[in-house]
């Protein structure tokens, strides 16, 4: 006979068990197996025919991915970005003093900034080179994409939220229409924008022709390839930040606006002294959420520009995909995925820290 306690435990695990099993086998196990793969010379096709064709090579894949020959450390070509690390340091300290966040965020911010400063100093000397220059190009492209897409996403999302914030049906209708693009799949939006950007068949091109101008060549132009991906992405994902910020706006008590208006505040003052401070939490949430999701960009770069022209829009996930499934080198691809884990882990950790969930007891 089981004790009451044991019986309760058994019952509870029968409810949790199915999810726990699926989650462990198909999420946690692959996560750790990825590290194991990354320590091997592992060709997908060879291992498929002969499971013993893989060879343990330690951290060699990591060196091949991120290291180079005759690297030196100096304040060099990237000094401007290195200076950004100091700004990160200042912001984390300032926010801590102003009590925007606690000691944990301060420590993460400081460690992150210092690591960034040190890592960016490494570069090949005169006779040296990176082992895999394309990896660093992919990292740069991913960061450029995130830095280029997240600010417009937040700004336009905020603008739309403020514009449609009416307490009636009108808001619901506009919310639905602006969210519509977000329910489409990535392959549909790349299909649409491939043709929007086409200099022969696209909509802007049709307008340009009528105006007697030369149509702009978008996706095959090295300077405009990344902007075209950013435009398509901003258009695609704008619904999410709009809804979050709209909900945030509606949480701000109307009385605050009324009181300020009696004191003679104009629209600009209302926005900067009531609306923006009131939106602090939703804005931080949207920022982290968008950084995390845009970092994993794959479909747009794969289908709209195929990573090109050259490597101009090759992003991290696309490079991992190509290394693993076109070149069949999944050991090396696994090592690259670990770098992705590290980048993403930092942001996801902060994201988890700031979310205010009910605690289970």
């Amino acid at each position, binding site marked *: 006979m089981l004790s009451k306690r044991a019986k309760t435990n058994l019952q509870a695990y029968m409810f949790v068990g*199915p999810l726990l099993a699926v989650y462990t086998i198909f999420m946690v196990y692959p996560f750790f197996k990825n590290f194991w793969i990354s320590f091997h010379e592992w060709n997908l096709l060879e291992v498929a025919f002969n499971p013993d064709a893989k060879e343990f090579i330690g951290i060699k894949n990591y060196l091949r991915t991120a290291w180079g020959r005759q690297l030196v450390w100096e304040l060099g070509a990237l000094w401007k970005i290195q200076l950004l690390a100091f700004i990160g340091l200042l912001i984390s300290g300032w926010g801590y003093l102003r009590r925007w966040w606690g000691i944990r965020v301060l420590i993460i911010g400081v460690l992150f900034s210092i690591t960034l400063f040190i890592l960016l100093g490494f570069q090949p000397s005169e006779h040296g080179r990176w082992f895999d220059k394309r990896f660093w190009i992919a990292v740069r492209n991913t960061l450029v994409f995130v830095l280029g897409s997240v600010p417009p996403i937040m700004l336009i999302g905020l603008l739309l939220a403020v514009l449609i914030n009416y307490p009636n049906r009108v808001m619901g209708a506009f919310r639905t229409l602006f969210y519509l693009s977000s*329910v489409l799949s990535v392959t549909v939006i*790349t299909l649409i924008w491939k*043709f929007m950007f086409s200099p022969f068949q696209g909509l802007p091109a049709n307008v340009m022709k009528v105006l007697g101008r030369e149509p702009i060549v978008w996706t095959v132009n090295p300077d405009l390839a990344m902007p075209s991906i950013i435009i398509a992405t901003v258009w695609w994902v704008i619904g999410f930040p709009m809804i979050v910020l709209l909900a945030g706006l509606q949480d701000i008590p109307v009385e605050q606006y009324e009181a300020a208006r009696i004191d003679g505040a104009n629209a600009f003052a209302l926005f900067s002294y009531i609306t923006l401070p009131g939106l602090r939490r939703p804005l931080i949430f949207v920022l982290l959420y968008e950084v995390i999701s845009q970092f994993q960009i794959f479909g747009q770069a794969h289908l709209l520009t195929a990573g090109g022209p050259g490597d101009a829009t090759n992003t991290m996930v696309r490079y991992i995909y190509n290394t693993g499934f076109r070149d069949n080198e999944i050991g090396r691809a696994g090592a690259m995925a670990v770098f992705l884990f590290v980048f993403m882990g930092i942001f996801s950790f902060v994201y988890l820290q700031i979310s205010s969930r*009910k605690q289970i007891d």
Partner: protein
Amino acid sequence: MLFTTVGNKTGYYISIIFLCVLVFLWLLPIIFMVSLSLQPNELLVVSTAKLAFGLLPSPVTIKNYMRLLGIDQTPRWFLNSAIVSVVSTACVLFLSSAAGYAFAKIEFSGKKLVYAFILAGLMIPREGVFISLYTLFSDLKLHNTYFSLIIPNLAVPLGTILMTQFLLGVPKEFEEAAQIDGANRWYIFSKIMIPIARPALSTLAIITFLATWNSYLWPLVTTQETNMFTITVGLASSQQGYFEEALGSIMAQGVIASFPVVLLFLIFQKNLVKGIVVQSK
């Protein structure tokens, strides 16, 4: 609210008109797609700008759609997507609500630890584990099956977290009354908690369905046989070749691929909005 500070009706109507123009511009790419899908391929090769820069179809034809339903593989891909999305959604609802019920309502050993273990999954980037997931399904010899398309969709922590959070807010009295009547846990879960949780379940359902229908990277990796493609992968494979000559057909394919999600969104948009807001709190 901000612009109603003008305080009069005129300001209100001006902003509504401004918003209408903005929405129209925002939806232009979608209008363009639908318009192109209704025009014959042969004409689109020559020009896409017959009427109103191509925003209005001229001449109108439904040949593109008929052809997709006839000789093309599109109906098969559509069916695959439907099977995968419906089954995934049903399974996610069951797994998440069962686990959420245990986390929210049962005192058991190791609860905090197990919950933290599942929360930690939020830190794993989904686009980062597809290599090892691929080798796992290779070992199981399960690529190109519905199983491989469905199972990874179930291994996500979000649903469990949403359900746990929702059920934590359900007052204790509901189950205490049933417990006094001698009801067992399965009865409490299926007959009391599930009906109460219906709003949260619809929210989770629409989020899961949209995510599954639209997922691209994993179906791309796990399906090599074209008859196991989902509609997203099929559409991607159609647009990677040279297809300027079949513009109308491929746009029709895009419209068909979007139809179910747009329809479900229009029906369940309130639930979706609620789900997004809950995530942001």
